[in-house]
C-alpha cells in the first residue's frame, strides 16, 4: 500500500461513505427514535447522496484534494439541513481548508486534515468530548490516528487504529448522558442508547478510512 493518498482515492472513499450510510439508513433512523426524532438516517443519507454528484462533476484536471473536500462540505452545509448538515458540512469544509493545495495526502496531511474535521464539529456544535454526540466518535478517531502516526506506524495501521478509535468512541456514547442536541433534554433517560450521530460518524469513518486501506 502506498504511503500517500491521491484525489482518486479520496473520491472513491467518498463514494464508499455514501454507500455505507445508505446501507445503515434504517438503523440510524432507529437509533434516533428513543432519544431523538427518528430521522437521522434520512437526513444523513439525503445530504450525502448529493455529494456523489459533486465528486463526479469535480473536474478531472483539478487535483486539489482540499478544494474537493471544501466543495463537499459546502454542499452539505448549504443543502443538508437537520443538525447533521451544518456539523458534517463544517467538518468537511474545515478539513478541506487544512489540506488546501495538496494533490496528495501524506500521513502527516491526513492527521492534520482529520484534526480539522474534528475541530469543525467542535466549533460548529460547541461540543466537548463526552457530550454524547458525533464528536465522541470523531475526536477519538483523530487521537488514534495521531498516536499511530507519532508511533511511526504505517498508513494502513494508522487507518485501522483510527477506525478502531471511532468504534470505541461510538460505543462509549451508550453509557453517556447527553449534553448537546435533541437528546440533551432527556437527562438520565438518554443513557443506554448509542447516539445516532456517533453512529453515522462511525459509518463515515469506517467507509472512508476503510476504503483507503483496501485501496
Amino acid at each position: 500500500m502506498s504511503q500517500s493518498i491521491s484525489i482518486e482515492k479520496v473520491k472513491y472513499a467518498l463514494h464508499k461513505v455514501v454507500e455505507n450510510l445508505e446501507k445503515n439508513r434504517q438503523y440510524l433512523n432507529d437509533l434516533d427514535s428513543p432519544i431523538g426524532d427518528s430521522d437521522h438516517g434520512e437526513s444523513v443519507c439525503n445530504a450525502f447522496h448529493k455529494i456523489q454528484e459533486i465528486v463526479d462533476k469535480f473536474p478531472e484536471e483539478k487535483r486539489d484534494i482540499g478544494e474537493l473536500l471544501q466543495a463537499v462540505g459546502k454542499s452539505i452545509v448549504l443543502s443538508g439541513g437537520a443538525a447533521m448538515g451544518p456539523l458534517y458540512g463544517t467538518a468537511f469544509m474545515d478539513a478541506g481548508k487544512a489540506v488546501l493545495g495538496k494533490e496528495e495526502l501524506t500521513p502527516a496531511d491526513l492527521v492534520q486534515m482529520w484534526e480539522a474535521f474534528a475541530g469543525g464539529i467542535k466549533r460548529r456544535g460547541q461540543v466537548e468530548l463526552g457530550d454524547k454526540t458525533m464528536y465522541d466518535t470523531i475526536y477519538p478517531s483523530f487521537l488514534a490516528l495521531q498516536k499511530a502516526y507519532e508511533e511511526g506506524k504505517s498508513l494502513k495501521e494508522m487507518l485501522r487504529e483510527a477506525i478502531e478509535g471511532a468504534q470505541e468512541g461510538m460505543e462509549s456514547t451508550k453509557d453517556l448522558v447527553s449534553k448537546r442536541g435533541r437528546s440533551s433534554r432527556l437527562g438520565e433517560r438518554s443513557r443506554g442508547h448509542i447516539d445516532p450521530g456517533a453512529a453515522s460518524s462511525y459509518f463515515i469513518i469506517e467507509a472512508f478510512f476503510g476504503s483507503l486501506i483496501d485501496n
Partner: protein
Amino acid sequence: MKVKKFINQPENLIEEMLEGFVIANQNKVKRLETERVLVRKDAPVTGKVGIVTGGGSGHKPAFIGYIGRGLVDAVAVGDIFAAPPVQRVYEAIKAADAGKGVLLCLGNYSGDVMNFGMAQELAQSEGIEVESVIVNDDVASSPKERMDNRRGVAGEVILWKVAGALAEEGADLKKIKEVGERAVFNTRSMGVAHTPCILPTTGKPSFQIGEEEMEIGVGHHGEPGIKRTKMMSADEVTELLTRQVLEDLPFQRGDEVTVLVNGLGSTSLLEMYICFRKVAQILSDYGIKIHRTYMGEFFTSLEMGGFSVTLTKMDEELKRLIDAPCDGIHFVQH
C-alpha cells in the same frame, strides 16, 4: 403494524404536498423557483420588517399555514422533522426583506439554530439586517436553571402572532425582536402523548409506547419528556400539565394569560375542550384571568395522539398584538 397513509412515493411527499398547498392557497402564497421556500404572495412587503420562520415538515398547519398578513412572510421548508438547510433559509431571508430587515423565528433545536444562524451570517454579510428570536417554551425539556436548553413547541405560534402583528404595524426590527423575545419569555408549554405518529419516510413510529401508557412532557417530534405513566383521566393529566406550566413562570394572582391548547394530531377537539375546561378551572383558582383562548391544531406532529397546554402572560402591548386581525392560510382572526 402496516402504514396506513394517503401518500404516493415517500421521497416525493414534501414536493407533492407543496404543490397542493400552492394551488390551494394561490391567492395568499407563492413558491420561490430556486429553493423550497414559500412566501407571502405580496412579499417583500414595502415598509415592513420581514418575518421568516421554518423548520422540519410534519407539523402542519405549522409552518407554512402561518404565511399571511399579520403573520409570517417566508418559510424555509425542511424535510420531515429536519431543519431546513442554510441556503434555503438564506433565500427565505432574501425573499422577505423589503429593506427594513428580517426577523428569524425558530424553535430551539440545534439543527434549526445552526442552519438559521449560518444563513443569518450569510445574509448579514450581504448587508441585510437580520435578527433572530429562538423559542424555548417547553418546560418539560429542561429544568428552569437550564432554560436556554429547552425545546420550542407550540409557543412559536404566539411569537408569529405577536411579531407578525407588530411588523404589520410598521415597527422596526429592533422593536420586534424585543417584543418577540418578551413574548417568548412570557410563554410556557407542556405536552402529553399516548400514540406516536408514523414517519411517512420510514414507515416507523416516532416512539414506542405501551397500550395503556402515555408520555408526559413529550416533544412534538415524539422526543421523550419527563416520564412514562399509565393513562390518566383528562382532569388529572390537564392538572399535571397546567400546574407545571404555571409554576415555571412566576404567574401571579391578577395576571392575564393567553391560553393555547394544541392538538398534536389525532386527539379530538372534543377531548381538548374537556381538558381546557380544567385549565380554566385551575387558572380561576389561581386568580389568573384568561385574555384569549386558542383551541385546535396549531402545531402538530403528523397524527400523534396527544395535546399541549401553552400559557403566555400578557401585558397591554402583547394583548394588542394578540388581538390584532390576521389573515394566515390556516390562522385567521378578525
